């Protein structure tokens, strides 16, 4: 018999019958998704940890305690500690101006804030070299005044701020737009001043969204490679952040050492993902509806 003439089983719930696929189609699709994700996403992650410990735990801890590695970790933390708070303040200010007020050119302003996301990381570093590098527009003046920006820490901080610029604003703007001005107007009409309104009314409303934005901002700040690579000058032990140090070790064929440092950043990524998932599950309605970035 060519055709299966048996009647279709009754639909017990919405996930079967007329609005879903046959079992084998479902199994094949799930298998495809899982295999694809395993090949492209999971295996690289597993490999990082496996390679990091290839030469044993002792070698792992020895590579991490080397002086250059320690300074790279310190530099990464320092850069993030400067860049993230600055972008946090900006993100809150920008979303206050954009979400609480109606003004001309708002859409254009939002596009400009998003701009760093559509710029190649390499270009993000290049623009500062053009401004502050030895041949740059401010180069001679900086040299005359003995200020180092490019191939020094300030350049790394600037490039990091650039690439993480939109994260907090991007999360807060849609959130504050949905929340509207009602709470703030109530507080103001009860006699609170602007700062009181912000601290006691707005901030509690946006705290989870703010944390979410800061989390993503921080992950990118600590992991940025391209932009920082262009402005850093790769001075070992001085201007190498963790990702740059990974590159140096890898190019010296010290793979176990490179993967040891990489495993720290992979841990950071995992922690970021876990907190992010928890925030989405627990406070999903207090985050911006959009999950794109």
């Amino acid at each position: 018999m060519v055709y299966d003439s048996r009647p279709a089983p009754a639909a017990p719930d919405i996930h079967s019958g007329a609005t879903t696929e046959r079992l084998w189609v479902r199994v094949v699709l799930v298998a495809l998704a899982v295999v694809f994700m395993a090949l492209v996403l999971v295996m690289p992650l597993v490999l990082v940890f496996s390679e990091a410990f290839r030469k044993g735990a002792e070698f792992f801890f020895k590579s991490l305690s080397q002086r250059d590695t320690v300074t790279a970790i310190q530099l990464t933390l320092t850069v993030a500690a400067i860049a993230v708070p600055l972008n946090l303040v900006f993100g809150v200010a920008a979303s206050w101006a954009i979400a609480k007020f109606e003004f001309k050119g708002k859409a254009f302003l939002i596009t400009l804030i998003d701009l760093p996301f559509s710029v190649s990381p390499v270009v993000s570093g290049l623009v500062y070299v053009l401004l502050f590098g030895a041949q740059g527009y401010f180069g001679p003046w900086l040299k005359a005044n003995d200020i180092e920006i490019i191939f020094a820490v300030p350049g790394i901080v600037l490039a990091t701020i650039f690439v993480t610029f939109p994260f907090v604003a991007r999360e807060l703007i849609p959130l504050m737009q949905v929340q509207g001005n009602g709470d703030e107007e109530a507080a103001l009409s009860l006699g609170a001043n602007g700062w009181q309104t912000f601290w006691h009314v707005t901030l509690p409303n946006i705290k989870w969204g703010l944390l979410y934005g800061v989390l993503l901002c921080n992950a990118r700040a600590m992991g940025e490679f391209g932009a920082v690579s262009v402005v850093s000058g790769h001075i070992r032990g001085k201007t190498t952040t963790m990702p740059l140090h990974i590159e140096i070790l890898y190019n010296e064929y010290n793979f176990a050492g490179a993967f040891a440092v990489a495993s720290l950043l992979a841990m950071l990524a995992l922690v970021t993902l876990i907190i992010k998932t928890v925030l989405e599950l627990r406070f999903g309605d207090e985050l911006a509806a959009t999950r794109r970035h």
Partner: protein
Amino acid sequence: MGSLTSSTHPASKAKNQPARAGWYFVKPSVVPGFGLTFGYTLLYLSIIVLIPIAALFFKAFSLSPERLIEIATDRRTVAALWVSFGSSFIAALVNVVFGVIVAWVLVRYRFPGRRLLDAIVDLPFALPTAVAGIALSTLYAPKGWVGALFAPQGAIGRLFADGSWWADHFGPWTIKIAYTPAGITIALIFIGLPFVVRTVQPILEEFEQELEEAAATLGATRLQTIRHVIMPRLTPAVLTGFALAFARAVGEYGSVIFIAGNIPYVSEIAPLLIVIRLEEFDQPAASTIAVIMLVIAFAMLLVINLIQAWSRRRFGDGV
């Protein structure tokens, strides 16, 4: 967007009295702090983003037009742009296919590990690109876990190596992933996947299943329902996801340079060429390539906005 702002209060109007009747820059509101926050936003935006980007354009356009064209049409520049845009395009296409499958499976089916799979989708957003780069490079190198399969002795490579049925009929064929444009594409697939999944997923979640029931009631087969009811609704999201993944891939640097092999004219991407020109102290060339990439990126951004505007008109929401 606009409908959510507060009603205006007559009392606050006096302060913000517009210069021209009926025209205002900012709509009057009882909420304070516009001047401070807007001013700070503009200042910070200018210092960090606008002035540096303006400097880039200034640098590139201070060149004579002949020099500009000479750099832009340099064989190596064209080859690098071709590698970047070509592999980004293929990677974005692969991401559209698998991204839609992953999003579909995550929204529509219940299976063990679904939540974990959902969380892992965002890994490329969180994992630093350099880490992804060395991991993918090691994984797909001829001796790596996956690369070994494609080596001539490997399970898949053997099928095409000397003495195989394939080699007898078509000649031996080695599949090399790492250090070739195929490796670049793999890295760009890694980077771009979440863009497609996270754009398509919310649309699928909001999709009214009553429409599918209605289609089934009217006698449509499942395939017809997917083809004529679900797919049209997903199209704008898929296009947006494609554009986002493509735009991100074109500029990607960290995850690519380790796996690419970086052979000029073959597997050298445009961002790497910018770095090389900069290291040669050839700022004009670096700036010109950067401007070409920026202009194309802006065009992509424009396309994304047009798709979203079209989607809003057609379906009443953004993507």
